[in-house]
């Protein structure tokens, strides 16, 4: 499944027009070499297949691979959001257990694996660490019953990859502000302030990546 993705993988520098930065592109890739090896589309497709293997076959080897990648990142995210190490560990385990249990609800034409796992982690964090209730929107009437269209899934994976690249390519200060907003480290007045920039940034520099992502989600 998803074999045609092999031909669509983009290695090396991304085309400049993805975020409209023009000639700055080379400067960017040299400036932050550690951030550049972004998660490519083939890896993103592999995660989807692993979740499907968990759903269809209770595949523990696939789960172990998913676990090895996501659990430490979830834990790292929770620690940066202020959780103590043992709480972050426990919460990350709970998140992966939820991934297993809810694998049948995953719809890769609506959310990438990273996006979906992030939403599970966020809800667990609110529940276990902040001990608050999380109201969730009503589900759409069309559930994830039908197998999603492969082309949609690949397009969404590619656009999510480009979004990741666009975020990684932001100037340090701007990226830090967006990160702080997601770590719960930014007050709402800071977010709202013009000098705070994360939203202005999203509107201009990430907007194109988001627009393309949204298009691929439809």
């Amino acid at each position, binding site marked *: 499944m998803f074999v045609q993705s092999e031909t669509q993988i983009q290695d090396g520098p991304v085309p400049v027009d993805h975020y409209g930065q023009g000639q700055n592109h080379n400067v960017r890739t040299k400036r932050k070499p550690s*951030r550049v090896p972004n998660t490519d589309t083939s890896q993103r497709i592999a995660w989807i297949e692993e979740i499907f293997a968990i759903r269809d076959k209770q595949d*523990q080897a696939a789960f172990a691979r998913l*676990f090895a990648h996501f*659990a*430490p*990142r979830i*834990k*790292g*995210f929770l*620690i*940066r959001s202020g959780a103590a190490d043992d709480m972050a*560990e426990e919460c*990350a*385990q*709970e998140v992966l*257990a939820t991934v297993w*249990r*809810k694998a049948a*609800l995953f719809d890769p034409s609506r*959310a990438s694996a*990273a996006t*979906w*796992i*992030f*939403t599970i982690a*966020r*809800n667990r*964090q*609110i529940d276990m660490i902040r001990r*608050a209730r*999380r*109201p*969730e*929107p*009503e*589900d*759409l009437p069309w*559930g994830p019953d039908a197998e999603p269209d492969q082309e949609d899934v690949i397009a969404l994976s590619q656009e*999510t990859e480009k*979004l*990741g690249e666009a*975020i*990684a390519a932001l100037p340090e200060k701007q990226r830090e502000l*967006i*990160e702080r*907003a*997601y*770590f*719960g480290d*930014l007050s*709402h007045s800071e*977010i*709202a302030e013009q000098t705070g920039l*994360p*939203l202005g940034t*999203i509107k201009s520099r990430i907007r194109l990546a*988001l627009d393309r992502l*949204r298009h691929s*989600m*439809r």
Partner: protein
Amino acid sequence: MKDIKHHLTDQLLMGYAAGTLPEAFSLVVATHVSLCDECRARLAEYEAVGGEIMMDAGAAPMAEDALASTMALIANANPAPKQETRSTGIFPTPLRDYVGGDKDAVRWRSVGGGVKQMILSTEGEATVRLLHIPAGSAVPDHGHNGTELTLVLQGAFADHTDHFGVGDVEVANEDLDHTPVAAEGEDCICLAATDAPLKFNSFLPRIAQKFVKI
């Protein structure tokens, strides 16, 4: 889908995606998103941003037995709860869960002048309540110390800024001093959240006072 003109701000959607909003605001966001495809799509974008941030936040090593412990969690867990069904009343599912039912399950309390409310139980700084305003009536003039979100669920209201119908959400801040008036016709029911508890505490007695004077 309803004809919604007034949507959530980027700040609110990003904060909800990040999980950093107070519960009262999250309830308004979740209720509006239940009614609004556009904000649902925008929320998905901000969740995708969150996914990428999480992937790139730096890994923290897991405990040695973490995978085995997680497999044990899976083995001991109850099956995933059944997905909730779609609401058929005027309250979308997230709001129904807080009220304990639809419109007819609301335990209204009069605050004077025909205006009724029910405060919903939430944690944190912000508060949220349902308001029932008779058609054609005004909610007394009030300012805001913080942010106030007002989502229309039935009927409509207008203030000097615009007209708000079912599904519309008004995002008001310190700058807005307004007198919302419920439209003629159907009584207006809205969900209102505010993050200014001090102002909110003094708000009710003031309403009562004003109505007593009238």
